[in-house]
């Protein structure tokens, strides 16, 4: 069967309804407005600096969080060990307490504690050991609350390089994207 050539653009008519307008003309407006980002996604090599900025943003915070969390957990556990020792508990008693704490931490992911069942199910689908992912997701709210309390209460809202709250609405660092995303 002969295929008719695809016609560029959409026919404008004064009789267009909102639904027809949305499907044809508005879609064409979206496609034209999104042309720079479509070009960037189709060929990321055209702007390596910009895509490197996106890569950094994409991975740096996630990597930093996932690196800091186990360090904090380990050092808090060691501090707890020290506190028990300074309180005068013998090594055997400390070992029993530590064993109980480790067992509780290992099995914490079985019960619905902080996050909802949907979140736990989502964490279980990741290609990582489920006890690890669910524990991270369970701990995250407590970790975040404690961190925010320290940051706002003790560190004077220190932002670790991104102090300005309004930066959430600012440019994202890719000129072509920023021009595109900036409100008209």
């Amino acid at each position, binding site marked *: 069967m002969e295929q008719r050539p695809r*016609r560029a653009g959409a026919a404008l008519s004064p009789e267009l309804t909102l639904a027809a307008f*949305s499907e044809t003309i508005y879609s064409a407006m979206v496609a034209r407005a999104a042309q720079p*980002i479509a070009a960037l*996604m189709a060929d990321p090599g055209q702007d390596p600096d910009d895509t490197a900025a996106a*890569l950094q943003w994409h991975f740096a915070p996630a990597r930093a969080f996932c690196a800091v969390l186990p360090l904090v957990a380990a050092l808090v556990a060691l501090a707890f060990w020290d506190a028990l020792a300074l309180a005068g508990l013998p090594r055997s008693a400390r070992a029993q307490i530590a064993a109980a704490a480790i067992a509780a931490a290992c099995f914490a992911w079985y019960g619905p504690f902080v996050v909802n069942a949907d979140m736990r199910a989502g964490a279980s689908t990741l290609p990582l050991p489920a006890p690890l992912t669910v524990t991270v997701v369970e701990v995250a709210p407590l970790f975040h609350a*404690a961190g925010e309390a320290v940051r706002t209460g003790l560190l004077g809202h220190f932002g670790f*390089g991104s102090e300005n709250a309004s930066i959430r609405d600012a440019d994202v660092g890719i000129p072509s994207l920023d021009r*595109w995303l900036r409100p008209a």
Partner: protein
Amino acid sequence: MTEPAHGPRDRGAERRAGRSIGTRAVMLVASLAYASVAAAYGARALDAVVTPLNLTGTQSLAVYGKLVVAAGIGLLALRALFALRAPARVRFLGWLAAPATPCFVLGAVVLGSIAAAQSFESAWLANAGTGARAQSVRNLLLVTAATRQPDGSDLAARAATPGGRALLALRILSTGQITDPTEDPGSAAALAVRSLVAQKIGTPAQVFDHVFVPSVRSVRDAFNAYAAAQEQLAGAIRAIPQSQSDTWDRYTAALAARGLSPARLSPRDWPAAVGEAQLAGAPVAADWNPADRAQFLASVGKRLGESAQAEYSARVSALLGAALRPGLSWEQFVSEPLIQARWSNALGVPARR
């Protein structure tokens, strides 16, 4: 009665015990202080997972991240060092008890960690493929759309809570995507683009009401002006017979003033008659027969018709940017490629070809 004297061995054990308690107390305080600062940083990093930070913010966060992680590893190394320094446990590592050793160990571990992280990041950025780059840009779009206008999507729901953000961080590191792996990232990105465009230019309903409907009124106005130009053209064409007749009358009156009549002219008077005809407004040829009324009227009609057509074309061109044939209905008018092109251009959409 005298107290039993403590021997040198007992005093050494007491000093060691006192140092051990002091060291443990210092490490306890240092660990808690570190955990506090690192948790504060971790909370910020967790927020940044779903915050479209600019490049400066991202890089600053990454630099602080390296410092915090390196400090944590350094602190763990110090703890390991103090554990190894207990002479009763590992006697051949007595050199670790030197006072400067902790400083050297801490410095070496921290600087080494920073250098390793820097090296890893540089190599990773240099080796990232186009797929990963495109995915990052797509994820940036998705996050920007989800946080600027929460739409009830999985991503927006996850981004709203710390637990969800932690899940997203794990998902990014394990799959490279920020969306659910079962979702089609292409369609999610298309929806995100549509959402961002809606924020920029308006929703379909807003654009329809505030852009399209006024544009239809403008096209209608243009059609009315086009119709007025047509009416002017028709009026000019309707007036041609009368103008022809008036011109002939002026011509015959001019001849009569010379004592001549078109029906009774000698060949000697023909050039003067042709001149009078041209002065009256009839562009007749030099060999025109001064008695030929039909040709006279035809030349006048042709001149007036061309003039009316030129005036019409100039008016339509000024109105629409190009000539447009007369006699179009409203439906034909809006379907004309010229009108479609101008209308599309005004709306910012590709014209239909």
